[in-house]
């Protein structure tokens, strides 16, 4: 008998790690880094799912969110929607199996992208409290509501059903989840409160009721009655596919030939384009896709990059739209001026995307300090990692001084402004799985900057018109303050009576107010041109005379 080697020993220790186990140990990859963030992630994943489901089912969403504080660091999260519900058989898989879902395999603008969210919440809750998730769902008035208590078998990545019963439910349809987890509730820029406010802003078609741990109920009313256009699913564009994915697709395709595969599994590939790719790659277009070797696949991959293929269709996107974005802003931000810009769709790495920017200016917004940035991707607020986000780069790169804000070099401008930047795409490139920051693709930054500039121009024209007028009035008021000063100085200089001089000046001011306002306009025109109005100013001094 062969001797037992070290390799045998090691082999006993080597075993497959289930995805559930992996995430148990690497929860930060999903955004559950700390209890504060975990609470936010739970709400976020559940609400994102609810909104996505409603959009797909063409239902105006009514969402109820409740946080109950059970202990110092233990919370119950409840999220309920009026969505289409989930058929009984699917409930355990959707909630109790990581990476299960319909979203990962297709290209379509949606809130969740990786299908990892809600089951990760269950897993986190189970890890920190030992309890599972309670899911109630009803798919129509004629159907019964199903009630499940679900856990996850972390070894097998399989759901464990602890309870399964039929219950009475007041609603006609919808889904309700309840989960207990370890968390910390704090207010501020990265709080659940902020998330709910922002999601209401970017989804003005949704009605949201939020009950805070302090038992305060906040109503976010519906701003528009129209449903957003349903995003269409598209096939991947050849430019966006990576080599590994290409190989996998060829294994899975139903097409019989490479040429057929290229045409049917991608968008924008005609038979002539397919032939061209195959010719460049020196691959037989009639070959069976499954027989293509790795290095042939690489040739195909390279040939794709070298072939001119028209950009993917962009009608698959569903931006919020300028009007709705303004309504959302008006609803949630108390300002005096609002504008929004939706850029036409563009493409990065074969993926269609579109950028929207909204700006709220003035009113009760804080005048001092940096402007407030709200970032969104596919209608989901991004609350963490602002500095790492393409949004930040595009904002600091824009010359805000041209638009009436102050800005020091390479930094966020200052002023009473809330700037919303929203990216919609069939695939938003995040910098990490926690989906907190948009990656820095030059095409994306360029579009963001164009949108910011256009919105900036609209804001500036408002500032010029109204704010400047207000300042002008303030300057006229200054005369009233200057008069006693001048009268005093002149009295000292000449020995005349101050009161007499002051009275005459005040009379003149009243008489001449209209002319003064005209003068102000004139003076400003000249200021704009950069000319000096008064003498003795901006002298061209050719010498630094020491006198």
């Amino acid at each position, binding site marked *: 008998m062969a001797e037992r080697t070290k390799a045998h020993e090691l082999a006993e220790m080597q075993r497959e790690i289930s995805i559930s186990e992996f995430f148990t140990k690497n929860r930060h990859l999903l955004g559950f880094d700390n209890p504060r963030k975990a609470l936010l992630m739970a709400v976020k994943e559940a609400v994102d799912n609810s909104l996505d489901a409603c959009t797909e089912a063409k239902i105006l969403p009514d969402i109820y969110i409740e946080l109950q504080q059970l202990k110092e660091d233990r919370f119950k999260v409840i999220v309920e929607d009026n969505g289409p519900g989930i058929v009984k058989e699917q409930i355990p898989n959707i909630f109790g199996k990581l990476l299960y879902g319909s979203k990962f395999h297709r290209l379509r603008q949606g809130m969740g992208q990786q299908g990892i969210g809600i089951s990760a919440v269950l897993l986190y809750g189970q890890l920190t409290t030992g309890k599972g998730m309670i899911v109630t769902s009803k798919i129509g008035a004629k159907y019964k509501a199903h009630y499940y208590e679900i856990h996850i078998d972390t070894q097998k990545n399989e759901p464990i059903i602890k309870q399964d019963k039929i219950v009475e439910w007041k609603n006609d349809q919808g889904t309700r989840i309840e989960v207990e987890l370890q968390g910390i509730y704090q207010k501020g820029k990265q709080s659940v409160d902020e998330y709910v406010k922002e999601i209401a802003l970017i989804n003005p078609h949704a009605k949201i009721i939020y009950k805070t741990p302090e038992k305060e109920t906040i109503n976010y009313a519906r701003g528009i009655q129209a449903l957003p256009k349903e995003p269409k699913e598209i096939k991947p564009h050849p430019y966006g596919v990576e080599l590994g994915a290409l190989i996998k697709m060829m294994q899975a395709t139903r097409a019989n030939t490479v040429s057929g595969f290229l045409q049917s599994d991608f968008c924008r590939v005609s038979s002539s384009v397919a032939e061209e790719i195959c010719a460049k790659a020196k691959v037989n277009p009639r070959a069976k896709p499954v027989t293509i070797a790795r290095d042939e696949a690489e040739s195909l991959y390279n040939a794709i990059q070298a072939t001119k293929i028209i950009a993917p269709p962009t009608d698959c996107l569903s931006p919020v739209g300028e009007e709705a974005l303004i309504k959302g802003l008006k609803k949630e931000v108390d300002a005096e001026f609002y504008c929004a810009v939706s850029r036409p769709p563009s493409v990065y790495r074969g993926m269609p995307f579109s950028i929207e920017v909204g700006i709220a200016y003035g009113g009760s917004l804080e005048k001092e300090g940096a402007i407030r940035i709200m970032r969104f991707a596919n209608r989901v607020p991004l609350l963490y990692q602002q500095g790492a986000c393409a949004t930040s780069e595009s904002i600091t790169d824009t010359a805000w001084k041209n638009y009436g804000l102050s800005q020091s070099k390479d930094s966020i401008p200052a002023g009473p402004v809330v700037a919303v930047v929203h990216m919609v795409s069939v695939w938003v490139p995040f910098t990490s799985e926690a989906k907190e920051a948009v990656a820095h693709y030059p095409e994306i930054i360029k579009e963001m900057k164009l949108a910011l500039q256009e919105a900036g121009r609209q804001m500036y024209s408002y500032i010029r018109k109204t704010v400047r007028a207000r300042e002008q009035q303030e300057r006229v008021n200054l005369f009233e303050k200057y008069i006693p000063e001048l009268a005093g100085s002149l009295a000292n*200089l000449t020995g005349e009576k101050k009161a007499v001089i002051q009275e*005459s000046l005040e009379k003149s001011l009243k008489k001449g107010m209209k*002319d003064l306002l005209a*003068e102000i306009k004139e003076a400003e025109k000249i200021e704009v041109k950069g000319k000096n109005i008064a003498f003795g100013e901006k002298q061209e001094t050719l010498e630094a005379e020491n*006198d």
Partner: protein
Amino acid sequence: MTKQDPKKELKEMGLKIVEQIKKGKNPEITFPLRNLSNIVFDKKTRTLKLGDKEGTRSFFNVAHAKKFLQTVEVASVIKEKLLGTGKHSSLRDVFYMVKRTVPGTNVNLVDEQTESDKAIEDLEVITNLSREQMHVNANKNGSVAGKVIIEDRGDTIDWSKLGSGGWSIPSNVEEIKFKKVDAKYILYMEKAAVWERLNEDKYWQKNQAIIMSSQGQTTRGIRRLLQRLYEEYNLPIYVLCDGDIYGAYIYSVIKYGSIALAHASERLTIPGVKYVGITMDDIEKYDLKKHFIKLDEKDYARIKQVSEYEWFKDNKAWQRQFKMMKDFKSKVEIQSLSSKDISFVSEKYLPEKIKNKEFLD
């Protein structure tokens, strides 16, 4: 220059304004423009002067109001607190005397010293008074030595008995009385270090001269002192500068006046002044090429600018110097003469050049 009563002048300016106010008019002050567009070179007197363009500053004008107030307030402060008490102050003092917040606003009457400085310059052109006559002085700057005895505020000062430092020239030399002046000429130099060399070598004693310097640009006080000695004692003035375009301009300011002080040309310029060195010809003659400092872009730009000034444009001798500067692509410092001997400048260079009348005019 006529003898004026500064207090009266300022009061009269004020009275004119009050008169307009009482008539219900928008009060204005009119005075010559002081910007480059209104600087002219007067060919007859060969000095820079203000042209006849006038500006008007009125109170009920958004762009002018604050400046109007500043001008009147500065005038009032000078009349009351300086002329009224007989005290003198610096420009900085005036700034603090004027600075305050206008009640009911967050506006300061002046935010920076440049604003009160400008107001004083404005008063100079409005009233034709000099800053010194208004008891406002700049920092003293520069040294002088020679066989001269003066009286300054009751003290008698002998310029030949002040050791290594010499007499430091105040910014206001109007009230100085000359008791005895025993000199054949005045040597003015750009560099204090060269002055110290000449003073240590007792140049003024050996050559019967007055030596004077500042550091860099020539201040008003020095220019006025030079002018008084030139006019009252008919002393020739020779200027010693680095062999570069900036040296030429220092000479030019003393001789023709400056753009910033064109309104005061009458009191400050000395048309008879001559340039003794360093000239471009000295470079060959005294073998200074090994001490060349390369010209940079700024130097070339300045050469172009200065050579096109009206008062240099037709001056062949100077145009030749400018061309040589460009050909050499270099400049030299006065102190490069020290490579021969530390006292070469005082014992050989200057006496020789002055004796042979090797001047540029």
